[in-house]
């Protein structure tokens, strides 16, 4: 048995410790946001967050994860109450087929948690690891910028001004 903490909840998992996190999320925990794309950490569809960092869940074995905080799109909000990242994507209508979107959201979320004032170039550089075959990149970029703005305003006027000055300074 391996204990995994996903979106703040503890789960006992009965699986081979070498099993990639992606399979456990989808097959054992019923969390279907993270997608299987290539299985080799090349496309980014499986991206989730571990301890605040974006990782490819398809090449991350659960043996590496006890005691660490795993976050998936399901942890960003609900259908009734979507979080800022999800709202950004809805507002920008950034999905075509949608397969890559959860991975995009999680990598962007990790970036914005680390750097709330990320520039467009920062966003482009970070998301370069995630592929979208429909070609919705411009909308994804727009969605992440909206999410960043939503997160800033959610942190209140004080946080907002700090970020604004940061933004002006760069």
């Amino acid at each position, binding site marked *: 048995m391996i204990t995994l903490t996903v979106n703040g909840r503890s789960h006992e998992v009965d699986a081979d410790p070498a099993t990639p996190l992606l399979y456990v999320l989808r097959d054992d925990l019923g969390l279907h946001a993270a997608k299987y794309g290539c299985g080799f950490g090349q496309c980014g569809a499986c991206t989730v967050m571990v301890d605040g960092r974006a990782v490819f869940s398809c090449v991350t074995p659960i*043996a*590496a994860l006890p005691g660490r905080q795993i976050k998936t799109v399901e942890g960003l909000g609900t259908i009734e109450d979507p979080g800022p990242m999800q709202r950004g994507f809805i507002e920008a209508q950034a999905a075509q087929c949608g397969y890559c979107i959860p991975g995009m959201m999680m990598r962007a979320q990790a970036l914005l948690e680390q750097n709330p004032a990320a520039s467009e170039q920062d966003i482009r550089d970070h998301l370069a690891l995630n592929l979208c075959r429909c070609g919705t990149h411009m909308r994804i970029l727009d969605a992440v910028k909206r999410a960043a703005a939503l997160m800033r305003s959610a942190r209140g006027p004080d946080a907002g001004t700090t970020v604004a000055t940061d933004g002006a300074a760069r």
Partner: protein
Amino acid sequence: MRFLKVLFVLVLCGGLLFGGFLVYAHHAPIETAAPPAADTFDAATIARGAELAAMGNCNSCHTVEGGPALAGGRALETPFGTIHGSNITPDADTGIGRWSKAAFSRAMREGVDRDGNHLYPAFPYDHFTKLSDEDVDALYAYVMTRTPVRAPTPENDLVFPLGFRPLLAGWKLLFFRPGRFAPDNVARDETNHGAYLVEALAHCGACHTPRNTLGAEERSAHFAGGTSDGWIAPALDHKNPAPVPWTQESLARYLRSGFDRHHGAASGPMIEVARNLSRVPEQDVAAMARYVASVMGEPAPERAEKGRALVATLESGRTPVQTTGSSAPGGSAVPDPIYAGACGGCHDAERGAIDALPLSLATAARLESPQNLLHAVLEGVHPRNPKAAALMPSFDGALTDEQIARLADYVRTEIAGEPAWRDVAGTLAKIRKGAASGSGESTK
């Protein structure tokens, strides 16, 4: 009184010595010349100059990542501080637009700039001094026909007192041997051509030969292995640790394509070398490979036999193992779950759709320090084209430092069958510190 007299004499002698040294260290400036007109050089000379510049890696040190070609500014981290590659475009004010051929040639051969200042040996003139006149001319033709870029070279940041250039005269006196390449009369022409390209131009030894405390290549340890940018540049002499001995053919393939099936992909600072060599004629790279293979020498029969067995196993679709170790991949016992889940999918022949090099064949697992293996795990392995997807993703963030250190231990002892590395965690911490201070990265 007596004391003062002695002191006076001492100061006088010191002053004279220092003055003498400065006279010795001094080189006269070379007159400025009008930037040469475009039709000064013929197309064939410029084209050969381009190939020579690729073999000499001029772009590596003289171009900021993503910046204009040869416009300088790239920060080179040395144990003595940061030195910047200069702007060598033909811009008249900030580049070398007013340098005559004589001034360029003196810089390449003697490490002295047009004004007469000594240049730091981070510029590998200890190799370029061996170039033929014809090749220096072709390099000059190539450089002077590039687009001029206005870009002042940033100031160097060196430990005191090394910012004082005349001191370099002392360094040169001790370590610098100017002079043309001398062919080996016994060797074949192709080997000699390769030796010339490697020693005079490609300066493989700048990374693959160890340096002494004053930063000079140790002549007595030619190709015995060195370092570059926090990576180990493995030995290229008889001590090369590759499990499958290199041959002229595999070296040529690796140098020109950045990849060989039995040795894996060029990574770290070697990527740019291979990228450059992909742009030069095949016969030049073949000659370099021939020379490097001759320096490595024939492998001992036992090593050759072991190598053949590894290749045979790999070709039969199985993962070669080095050890009688109990938990090797493909073996009977259960392998380390982190290895199996994070690495085996690509590196074990039985499982991979990717066919990555089994780590039992990886040089990185057989070096004296885990540096190269840790770099691969932290940064991933990237192909020659910097825009293309990684060959291997970075595991930074997916695995904790403790897990990475344990994994490195496992690969080293159980897969490569070598005695454990001494301080994996410490090496990992050092690499992280280097990355945080942005060592070796461009300033832009």
